[in-house]
C-alpha cells in the first residue's frame, strides 16, 4: 500500500506532470528534428544517391560546393538578391500602408481585409500558376499594357533581369500580414507621447521619425530576421513559376538543394547544402543581433 502511495505521489507531482505533458515535444523534437538533422550531418560527408549505401568521402561535398560548383554560387547569388530585395521592400510597403490605414475611417476594415487577403492566398500553388500565366509573353500583364497603348510582347519570365522581379513582386504583394503586425504595434504606442510632441510643436514627419519609427524598430527587427530566413529558403514560387530559369537567374538555394537531392540523386550534396544554409542563418542572425544596439530601440 505504501509503495502504491509513493508511485501515486510521484505520478501526480508537478514536475512529473510537466514531463508527461511535454512528452510529445520531447519525442517529436528528437524523432523529427534532431535525428534527421544528425543523420544528414553524417550524409553530408558522404556520397549518397539514396538507393545504394552511403560512401564516406570526408569533406568532399563541402569542398566541391565552395570551389568546384559554379551553379551553387549562381544559386547563392539569386537567393541573396531575392531575399535582400524582396524582404526590405515588403517591410517598407507594409509600414507605409500601415501608416496610411492607421488613421481610422469607416472603410478601414474593408481596406485592411483587401490588403491582407493576398498574404493568406499568396503561398498557394493556385496563385503561383496564376502568376506564371500573368507574366508570359501572351499573358494578362502584356495585354493590359497593350490596351493602354504600350506595345509590348515581352516574356517577363524569359529574361534574366526581369524573371526574378516577377518573384519579388509576388513576395511584396503579400505585405498584408506584416502590415497587420505594424498596425497592432502602432496601436500600442501611448497617445501621450504624441500629445507631448504636439505641445512641443512637432509636425507629422517629426512625430513619425522621433516616436513611431523608433518604437517600431523592435517589431521591424524581429520581422526582418524571420522574413529574411524565409526569403533565403523560398521554394514553391520558383519551383512552379520559373523552375530556376532563365540561365539559373531564379535558381533559389532551396530549389537547387531539391534538384541536387532528387533530380541528380546527390543526397549527400543536398544534405551538405542544408547544413551550410543552417550555419549561414545562424551566423546572420547572430550578426543582426550584434547590430541591434545601433538601431533597435530598447524598451528595457
Amino acid at each position, binding site marked *: 500500500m505504501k509503495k502504491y502511495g509513493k508511485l501515486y505521489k510521484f505520478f501526480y507531482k508537478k514536475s512529473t506532470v510537466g514531463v*508527461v505533458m511535454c512528452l510529445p515535444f520531447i519525442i517529436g523534437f528528437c524523432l523529427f528534428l534532431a*535525428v534527421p538533422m544528425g543523420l544528414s550531418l553524417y550524409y553530408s560527408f558522404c556520397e549518397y544517391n539514396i538507393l545504394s549505401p552511403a560512401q564516406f568521402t570526408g569533406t568532399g561535398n563541402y569542398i566541391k560546393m565552395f570551389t568546384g560548383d559554379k551553379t551553387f554560387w549562381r544559386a547563392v547569388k539569386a537567393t541573396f538578391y531575392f531575399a535582400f530585395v524582396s524582404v526590405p521592400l515588403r517591410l517598407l510597403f507594409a509600414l507605409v500602408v500601415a501608416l496610411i490605414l492607421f488613421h481610422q475611417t469607416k472603410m478601414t476594415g474593408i481596406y485592411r481585409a483587401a490588403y491582407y487577403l493576398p498574404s493568406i492566398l499568396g503561398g498557394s500553388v493556385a496563385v503561383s500558376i*496564376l502568376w506564371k500565366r500573368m507574366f508570359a509573353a501572351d499573358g494578362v500583364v502584356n495585354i493590359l499594357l497593350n490596351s493602354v497603348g504600350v506595345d509590348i510582347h515581352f516574356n517577363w519570365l524569359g529574361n534574366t533581369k526581369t524573371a526574378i522581379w516577377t518573384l519579388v513582386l509576388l513576395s511584396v504583394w503579400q505585405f498584408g500580414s506584416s502590415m497587420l503586425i505594424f498596425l497592432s504595434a502602432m496601436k500600442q504606442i501611448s497617445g501621450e507621447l504624441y500629445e507631448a510632441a504636439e505641445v512641443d510643436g512637432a509636425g507629422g514627419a517629426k512625430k513619425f521619425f522621433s516616436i513611431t519609427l523608433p518604437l517600431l524598430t523592435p517589431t521591424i527587427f524581429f520581422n526582418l530576421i524571420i522574413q529574411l*530566413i524565409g526569403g533565403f529558403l523560398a521554394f514553391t514560387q520558383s519551383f512552379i513559376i520559373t523552375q530556376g530559369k532563365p540561365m539559373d537567374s531564379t535558381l533559389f538555394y532551396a530549389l537547387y538543394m531539391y534538384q541536387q537531392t532528387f533530380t541528380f540523386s546527390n543526397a549527400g550534396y543536398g544534405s551538405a547544402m542544408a547544413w551550410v544554409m543552417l550555419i549561414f542563418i545562424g551566423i546572420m542572425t547572430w550578426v543582426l543581433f550584434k547590430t541591434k544596439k545601433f538601431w533597435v530601440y530598447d524598451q528595457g
Partner: protein
Amino acid sequence: MRNKIIYHTLVFSFGLIMLYPLFWMLMSSFKDSNTIFTTAGQLIPRNFTLENYKNGWRGFGNVGFGSFFGNSLIIAFFATIGTLFSSALVAYSFARCEFKGSGFLFAAMLASMMLPGQILMVPQYLWYRKLGWVGGFAPLIVPYWFAIQGFFVYLMRNFIDGIPRDLDEAAQIDGCSYYAIFTRIILPLMRPAFVTSGIFSFIWRWDDFMSALLYINKTALYPVALALKLFADPSSSSDYGAMFAMAALSLVPVVMIFFIFQRQLVEGIASSGIKG
C-alpha cells in the same frame, strides 16, 4: 472633405490593383477556355460558362478533383487536430508545470521556430525513407501529433499565461491534480487559442506543396496543391480554363476561412507578432 475623397480614392484603387489578379483568375475561369487570353483585357466574361469547372473536375487520368480535395481535407484535418492536441499539452507543461530542463526545452522550441521547413526537406526525406513512410500520408500527418510547430506551442503558452493562476489554486484546494487542472480548467478556457491555431494550421497544411511533392507519388493520393501543379507542367495539355477553374476552387476553403474568421486571423497575427 476633398482630402478625404482623395484619400479614399487612392486607398480604394490601390486595393483594387492588389486584388485584380485574383478577380482576373476568378472571372477567367467562367470564360470559354479558348477566349481567356484573347479577351484578357476584359474582366467580365461575355459568355458565362461553367464548362471549365466540369472539365477541370474530371482531373487527371482516372482521378478526379473530388479525390484531390478529399486527400487535402484528410491531410489538413488530421494534421491540424494533432497540432492542436499536442501543442496544448506541451504549452500547458511550459506554462504551468516547470520541471528541471523545461527552460532548456522551451529555448530549443523557440530555436526550432526559426528553422524553416526547407532546411529539413532533405534530412527529413532521408529519415522518413528509412522509416518506410514515403509514398503515404504519414509524413504529412504523424509529425504534427508531436508539437513540431513551435509557433502554436508559443501562441498557446502565451494564452495560458494570461489565465489567472487563482483559478488553478482554487481548483487545487478542491482536490484537482495538475492533470485535472488541465482538462477541467485550462482546456475549456483555451477555445479562442484553439480557433486561432486551428485556422492557421489548416491554411498552412492545405497550402503545403513541398511535403506533398516529396512524399506523395501516386496520383490517387495527390492533394489539391500537387494536382494543380500538373496543370502547369509543360507536358500536360494546356487547358487554361480548367486550370483557372480548379485553382479558383482550391482557394475557396481558405477564402471562406478568411471571411468567417477574419477577426481571429488578425488577432493571431497581431498578438504573436509573427508573419502568418
